């Protein structure tokens, strides 16, 4: 009974936060006041989940159920539009693609980005002033995160030489610090 009450409270508070945001959004007033109000309601929801399931599971449940509630609510606010047909047209051809540049970007993001990411991760794993397991796990989590950042930068920014320089520099510097000070 207690768990059921906590779950209902958590879901209701989460839904109230979504509704508060939605009301502010419909009035084009999605500002800091609405944000603070929603944050308080979501904190109440998270608190209820935490009391019922512990902090670790409670926080995860708060985030997951808020997402599902938000989308279920959005489905009730669908704007039905009349079907639009797209007229057939033909655009002038695009300029010839430079596949060489594409391959260079792929290698930069894939290989050099990886080298930079793993270099920094290894440096952290060997040098950070933390417990051994903490160093290792944070380094392991940092590696794909840093590589993701390298990939994102390479696909968004056309300055290939800068990226090559930065990734090579990071890989070399982190490897140098790791091996020289070992």
């Amino acid at each position: 009974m207690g768990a059921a009450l906590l779950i209902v409270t958590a879901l209701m508070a989460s839904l109230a936060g979504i509704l508060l945001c939605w009301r502010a959004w419909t009035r084009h007033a999605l500002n800091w006041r609405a944000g603070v109000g929603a944050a308080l309601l979501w904190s109440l929801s998270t608190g209820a989940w935490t009391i019922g399931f512990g902090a670790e599971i409670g926080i995860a449940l708060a985030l997951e159920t808020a997402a599902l509630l938000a989308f279920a609510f959005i489905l009730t606010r669908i704007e039905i539009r009349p079907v639009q047909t797209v007229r057939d047209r033909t655009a002038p051809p695009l300029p010839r693609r430079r596949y060489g540049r594409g391959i260079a970007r792929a290698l930069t993001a894939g290989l050099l980005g990886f080298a930079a990411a793993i270099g920094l991760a290894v440096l952290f794993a060997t040098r950070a002033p933390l417990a051994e397991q903490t160093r290792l796990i944070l380094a392991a989590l940092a590696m794909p995160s840093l590589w993701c950042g390298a990939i994102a930068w390479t696909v968004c920014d056309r300055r290939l030489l800068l990226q090559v320089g930065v990734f090579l520099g990071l890989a070399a510097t982190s490897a140098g610090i790791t091996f020289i000070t070992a």
Partner: protein
Amino acid sequence: MQIPKSLTRAAMEGHGLLGVLFGAVIYVLCLTGSILVLVDQISIWERPDAPAITSLSDADIAAISARALAKAQQAGVAHDIYMQMPTDELPRMTVYGYDEKGDHRDWNVDATGQLVPHAETPWLEFMQLLHFNLTLPGAIGRYIVGIFGTILLASIVTGLLAHRRILKDAFRLRWGGSRRLTNADLHNRVGVWALPFHLIVALTGSLLGLAGLITIILAMVAYKGDQEKAIASLLGPQAGIDMRAAPPPDVARMLRDIQRRAPGAAVTQLAIEHAGTVGQQVRIMVAAPRHLARNEAFLFSADGGFKWRAGLTDGNAGMRIYGMITPLHYGTYGGIALKIIYALLGMGLTLIVATGGNVWLARRREQGRATSRLERLWIALIWGQPLVIVTVALLTLLGPVPAVASYWAMTTLCWTAALAMPALSTTARFRTSLGIATAATLVVHAALRSADDPAILIIDVGVALIIVTSMTRAFIKQRSAALAIVR
């Protein structure tokens, strides 16, 4: 602070590029991952005839471990033995025996504690092979899946940077007008509201796939090539290398020790490493409710002496995070209700990939750069893959069919048909085929398996009827609309 328009434009291009190049594989990974969240339920559905056990006492566990060791030694797979205990969601016990090369034999345990032949689940194993390894052999498959996890993470980041109207469109969902806008709204709404889930699943998936590679590199640098030492820092002391024969481990003493340290703890897994040798040790996992890690791990030497405790629930930050990675990715920390939440959110991520491709293709069509072949290939992917996966389930029900080969053959067939037969490669035809294949699979499964569990008959036939009814209604509505136009 506004994000500069140039950055948004660049991020949009980068986001689209990642989607075009890697979207197909990411779609398959998201689709299979969403289905595999329900691994326990699928296992029961596929083989309802497997022996069930609802609870085990410590004395039972000790006795079964002795039998498991004897059986594995007889079969020549006693290098390492793993015992998976029954849970509320999967009331079955499975014993896995591995030899030095990694080949294994599996057994189920019946209600009397005897080891019986394993109830094989070929479709579930195929799905796991597809998601974990993209069906590629060895570690290379896992690394490739890990790389795609990193690419998915990069797609999420670039997608966020490209979304200038995050607040302005926070609750907008337009349906039926422009195909591009409908798909864009679905893509953005699901993407933003479930962002924490997507980030966590992509990051943990990437790490789980690349873990082996990261361990090798870290071992080379931080542990001077000693991989065992690198692994031991997280998994505790490793089993000894002295392979001379030794008596079986004193599991009963270990279980008593655990009850002293953690009264009332329920054993979830028991592993005998280098079983039956002087170097053997026993790893026991016990349930830790209210913790994301789900389990705490204890290591014992063969005579029952305590060696090590992992600290997955109360150790340092590193061990606690380590314990959370797998449960966070698979959604195993909250019972069946959480699994349903994960399956829905996972399907949301799958929808994001599908709608992303739809947006890119629709934009090209609006710009006058329609690529009909790519559109057909994309339809063959997003509707063809579910059709192929269901058809593999049907084939494995009917006989000993090679699931992986069938999957690749049918996937190739779908794409060939998409290129060679445009009239067949429409969304409507694929959807209809999927409905028919799903209903047929459920009916065949009910015919073959309902004797083992009558509830199967109700679920299978009930869902099949729902599918057939909706397809019939859709068909009638379509015909009425067509006739109205003719009149």
